[in-house]
């Protein structure tokens, strides 16, 4: 019962995180910033707008992206297999890439291309993450990982590699080249409008929940440690977002494939000696 409530309110919690992120970013720049509930005001406004549809398939793919992400979050909360979660998340990204390529807009194609390249950068790290948990706990089950004590002392390099993917997943600087609002006008979301853009906007909130719930797996059974981990990483991600400029997509992929991939492989090899 408790889990079902958590699944239902997951997008709302994500919205609150997005709102607080905008407030924190504003306070870091010494300005007032929007109210905490700003993402919800945006949501109501988008529901009230007229919507342009390029073609129905494009719109349906956007909605499917949101629904699949919600399913991913639900599976994490229910504590199922970690590999299922990661590959379903891949499916959600594939939906949005297909949507990007299904319209004629150049910016949409560019955004979808960059989305694919960033997939190339972060997906190996996610799979190594699952492998690392499997080697340590002997199972892919998230519920088992949650019941045991923390694995962060055994998987420190994998933890760092996972931290490197967070700006890429949350579309924060320096790795926000696949969205790049003023450069390619939001990438894949360029042709969405009105209530259909709302689904992509809420998918962004669910992305927050997905990333931070994967992060809490490192905390194991300690809830206090999990909260502290999420708070610290959230703050650090915002500081990095505020203090760095955007790097281009080639640099992003190169950096993640060298450092993220390298660190996770080192950790996996190291585990076999333990």
């Amino acid at each position: 019962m408790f889990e079902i409530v958590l699944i239902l309110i997951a997008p709302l919690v994500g919205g609150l995180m997005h709102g607080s992120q905008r407030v924190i970013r504003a306070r870091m720049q010494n300005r007032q910033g929007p109210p905490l509930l700003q993402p919800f005001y945006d949501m109501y406004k988008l529901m009230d707008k007229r919507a342009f549809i390029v073609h129905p398939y494009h719109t349906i793919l956007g909605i499917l992206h949101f629904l699949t992400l919600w399913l991913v979050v639900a599976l994490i909360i229910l504590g199922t297999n970690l590999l299922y979660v990661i590959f379903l998340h891949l499916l959600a990204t594939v939906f949005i890439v297909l949507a990007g390529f299904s319209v004629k807009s150049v910016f949409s194609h560019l955004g979808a291309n960059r989305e694919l390249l960033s997939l190339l950068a972060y997906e190996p790290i996610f799979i190594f993450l699952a492998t690392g948990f499997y080697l340590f706990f002997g199972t892919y089950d998230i519920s088992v990982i949650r019941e045991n004590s923390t694995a962060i002392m055994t998987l420190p390099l994998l933890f760092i590699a996972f931290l490197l993917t967070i700006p890429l997943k949350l579309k924060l600087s320096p790795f926000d080249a696949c969205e790049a609002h003023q450069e390619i006008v939001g990438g894949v979301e360029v042709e969405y409008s009105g209530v259909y853009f709302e689904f992509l906007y809420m998918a962004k909130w669910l992305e927050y929940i997905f990333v931070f719930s994967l992060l809490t797996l490192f905390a194991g059974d300690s809830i206090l440690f999990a909260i502290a981990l999420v708070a610290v990483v959230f703050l650090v991600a915002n500081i990095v977002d505020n203090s760095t400029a955007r790097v281009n997509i080639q640099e992003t992929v190169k950096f993640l494939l060298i450092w993220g991939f390298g660190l996770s492989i080192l950790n996996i090899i190291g585990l076999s000696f333990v």
Partner: protein
Amino acid sequence: MFDLKKYRKKSPWILHYNAGSCNGCDIEILASLAPKYDLERFGVLNTGNPKQSDVFLVTGPVTFRSRERLVELYTQMPSPKVVIAVGSCTCSGGVFRDMYNVEDGIDNYIPVDVYVPGCASSPELIIDGVVKALEILEQKSKEIELPKKLFGTIKEEEGVLNLREMALSVAQKSEQINAQKSEQNEN
């Protein structure tokens, strides 16, 4: 059910277009969005995407080349929407009024809701204009508003805008204008 209309005021997303301005007003617009004047505290975002924006901030006296893009961007914005003319040039043509390459203000082409004076307008004036425009946005209905020139009529089939036919009529019209100009030159 609660009223969705009041949330329009709380999250206006801005589209900024430079219709041949000298960049003076554009710098002031960027200044009002930047940390010092902080338009984001009203929920304003600078989207750069006409399909997701509510407020159309235009600068510049509308040069001959930019008018088609101006109307194109205006029709790509879903209703309800408001238009703010920022700067003297945009309101009336300003110092460029009656020049051969200038169309004397955007209200010849699209309906304007708020005029912000000044050369260049100060960030305080722009913020004042945006806040005024939000009051107008709250009153507006979801009816499609017609641009005044170029497209003639909006072509809508089953609730979907037919942009292609509208753009074709623009091309025909600009061909006519070019033909007239070349005739005048020959005479």
